[in-house]
């Protein structure tokens, strides 16, 4: 039984030690660095990976998880070990630190007085005068003096920023909060990408890992666009989004980069914008028998040409190229469009087809109508980064807490003051001492000044306590 507890104790001690913490920090640093030097799967194309590494090397890298360091089990284990090390170190040291804060060392014993670096002794007429002067000086410095009497000896204690020694626990707690936030997001969070064109809506999300997840609402895109600077570089991408629940519109927002839509804890970020290669609307001038008429064509919608002729957009190739008698699209930019129109004559029950090549001013096919290209609106899509990160609030709370902790740790100095009336061989004296947990040189100066103030006060007291007549005699 005893042996068992000593093993547990040893494990605890090892994990709680600063050495373990430092070793973990070093290992984490090294593997994190390795992850930036070796190509990582989530950020690299598969064929780029095969080009960069020999097959055998790549197999080995994959098996060890070095191609996805930050999501590997051993990286998670290292983080967990760091978390455990922080917790154990805190459990190990906190009680002692707490004792020091809750029950401060109020009475400077002789052995303590012997070794304290910052201390002075002032000659006083009697104990009470010295203690009163010290208390007054403490109060003037904005401190609350606490008086203790033991064995007829009076001591005064005061302190400043008494909580500052606990700052390191605040910082460590904040780190744990951030780690917890990360873990919560690893298990409960998800990310995905949506591509919507104006008018389109969805209530499903394809996640990064390929799984499709239903959304508790329907998201509709009401429009998207790009604004440019005069020099042509993009200035702004925007999308108008509408959230629909049970057929009712509950939220509308125009999102831009840096300003997402948030609903049900899910965030929609403007992250991409581009051309679908599809037509939104096509404006044509149709001429037959000397009569010209302007028609607007949209996908899947027929337009009336005359009383019994209809025309529909059958196919649109934004940038066509002929190869082996076939029509191919070279790009999604409408630089050299080919337009196929389906014309139906309801009276004659006849169908015909027309190809238009606006860039070449050509029309092929059999139709009494002469079509002339007037205007074209291409459909754009908006790319939305979707993320659900319930743990982020823990992360932000951790960041704020860490800021508080670091300010406490570096800039709030725990300073303690003691004053005690002692008997020396030259008569009664007031012993004053101070200790600061950082920035000692600075406090050496202020302590000297502090002591000088008490000395001056004592001198004044002495003068006042001496009767006027005596003073004259002395003079």
């Amino acid at each position, binding site marked *: 039984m005893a042996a068992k507890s000593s093993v547990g104790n040893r494990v605890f001690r090892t994990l709680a030690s*600063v050495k373990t*913490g*430092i070793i973990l*920090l*070093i290992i*984490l*640093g090294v593997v*994190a*660095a390795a*992850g*930036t*030097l070796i190509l*990582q799967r989530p*950020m690299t194309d598969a064929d780029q990976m095969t080009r960069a590494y020999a097959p055998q090397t790549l197999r080995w890298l994959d098996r060890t998880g070095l191609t996805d360091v*930050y999501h590997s089990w051993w990286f998670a284990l290292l983080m967990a070990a760091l978390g455990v090390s922080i917790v154990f170190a805190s459990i190990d040291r906190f009680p002692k630190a707490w004792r020091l804060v809750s029950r401060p060392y109020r009475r400077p014993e002789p052995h303590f007085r012997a070794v304290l670096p910052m201390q002075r002794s002032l000659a006083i007429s009697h104990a009470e005068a010295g203690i009163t002067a010290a208390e007054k000086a403490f109060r003037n410095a904005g401190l609350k003096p606490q008086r203790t009497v033991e064995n007829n000896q009076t001591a005064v204690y005061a302190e400043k920023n008494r909580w500052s020694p606990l700052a*390191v626990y605040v910082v460590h707690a904040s780190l744990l909060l951030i780690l917890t936030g*990360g873990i919560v997001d690893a298990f409960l969070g998800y*990310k995905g990408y949506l591509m919507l064109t104006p008018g389109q809506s969805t209530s499903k999300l394809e996640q990064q890992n390929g799984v499709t997840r239903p959304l508790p609402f329907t998201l509709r895109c009401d429009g998207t666009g790009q604004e440019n*600077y005069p*020099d042509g*570089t*993009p*200035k*702004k*991408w925007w999308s108008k989004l509408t959230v629909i629940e049970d057929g009712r519109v509950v939220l509308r927002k125009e999102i*831009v*980069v*840096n*300003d*997402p839509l948030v609903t049900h804890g899910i*965030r929609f*970020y*403007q*992250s991409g914008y581009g051309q679908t290669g599809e037509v939104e609307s096509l404006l044509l001038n149709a001429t037959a028998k000397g009569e010209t008429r302007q028609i607007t064509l949209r996908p899947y919608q027929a337009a009336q040409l005359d009383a019994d002729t209809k025309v529909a957009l059958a196919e649109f190739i934004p940038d066509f190229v002929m190869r082996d008698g076939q029509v191919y699209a070279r790009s999604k930019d409408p630089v050299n469009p080919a337009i196929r129109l389906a014309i139906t004559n309801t009276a004659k029950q006849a169908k015909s087809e027309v190809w238009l090549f606006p860039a070449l001013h050509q029309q092929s096919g059999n139709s009494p109508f002469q079509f002339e290209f007037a205007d074209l609106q291409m459909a754009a899509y908006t790319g939305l*980064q*979707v*993320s659900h*990160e319930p743990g*982020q609030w823990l*992360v*932000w709370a951790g*960041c704020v807490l*860490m*800021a508080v902790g*670091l*300010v406490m740790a*570096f800039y709030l100095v725990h300073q303690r003051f003691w004053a005690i009336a002692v008997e020396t061989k030259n008569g009664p004296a007031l012993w004053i001492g101070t200790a600061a947990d950082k*920035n000692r*040189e600075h406090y050496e100066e202020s302590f000297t000044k502090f002591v000088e103030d008490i000395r001056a006060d004592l001198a004044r007291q002495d003068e006042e306590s001496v009767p006027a007549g005596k003073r004259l005699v002395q003079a």
Partner: protein
Amino acid sequence: MSRATASIERHPASSNNGLLIGVALGMAFLTFMAFLSVVKQGNLFNESNLLYLALIFYGGASALYIGFGVTGVERYVKFASIATAIGFAANTLAAGHRWYIAGRPPFANIYEMLLSFVWTVALLTLVAERKYKVKVIGTVTMPLAVTGVILMQLLPSAVHPLVPALQSTWLQVHVTLAMLAYAACALSFALAMMFLIRDQMKTETFLAVTSGMVTAIYLGIMTRFEKWGGLAVSAWDAQNKEEIFIQKGVRLMVTIPDLGWILLLVLLASVVPLAIYGMAKWRKRENFLTAANRAVFIGIALQVIALGGFILRTRGAAYASPDADGLYPTALAASPFILSGLITAIFASLLYLMLYWRRAGLERLLPNADALDRITYKTIGIAFPLLTAMIAVGAYWANQTWGSYWSWDPKETWAAITWLVYAGYLHMRITRGWRGRRAAYFAILGFAVVMFTFFGVTYLLPGLHAYA
């Protein structure tokens, strides 16, 4: 020889004034020449003129600080300090002018970051000098500022509007914090070096470290060595002031013939002192060290030739490329990495020379080792919370922009590694009571990681932070 030394000692005033007058005349001459050309252009108050003014004064300050470092004449510091202050004022106006023109703080690209970085370095130098009385700090920081301003002249400086992802207040906060944190890290590095000097670290150790660093830099540059002594550099589109890309992420490289041989020669020359140092340690022969120091002189001479060759051959010349037909121009701005490497190596070697010649004088100028150790710690006490805040704000911004507060992109990861290094330093110092040498080594390591995060990641590792 001895008579000359004696006469200098007898008339210190005249020799002091020599440098002062020289620097003042140089600065006046350059300012006058600049003024003439400005009058011809008719546009007095603009950013490039202000920057030029800042450069002149920072240059003058550097000369005086180095003069102070070498001779120990206190009076130089006073004038150096004034020159720094004037340069700083011009720098502030230049940054302010850019801010005014762009309608946003100047942090959007590497040119503007350098502008802000130089500004911070000059500010911290003045603060360190006035508040902490570390007078010799300018010897290190002002040449750094000058290098920064020169590098800026080579980078594209047109005010670009912000791409959408950068249109956020958090960006300004993030970058300001980064600049402040990195400048504090730079200061802690300089202080740690001074500590090592004051702590009686042997001069030959500095020799080994300096040669090692120069060797590492030239080894890095040698990765660009091509067949038959060529040096591969990026092609440069002078009209648009940008690199030429074959496809996304793949730069068009051109080969400068023969330059590789010179650089290889310098590499060998920088290994020589290191080798002799090793021999001296192994055979325990102190007299070898004199030879090692001679080798350093030769190395510096060769480095200067290499730098000159590099500058001359990259400016306004076109070279063939192994990847495409025809000749393509290149420019200094296309190889900021090589250029900073070459300049850093020369600068480090010169600092070593200063130490070698004037060790005793330098030590007298520095505060005592304990004080330096404490100030180093205090500087890191400033840098660490700034680093933390910088990372936190960056995470918040990333969350606003990319929908994820942490995505392990190289810059993020290296910022975290920097944070880990300084966290390690603080633990060792506070709980293990590490003082002195070991703490100084840690501070130096921390700054090396910072430099890699700032330059290395930007140029070597691809990632989301591509615009910085």
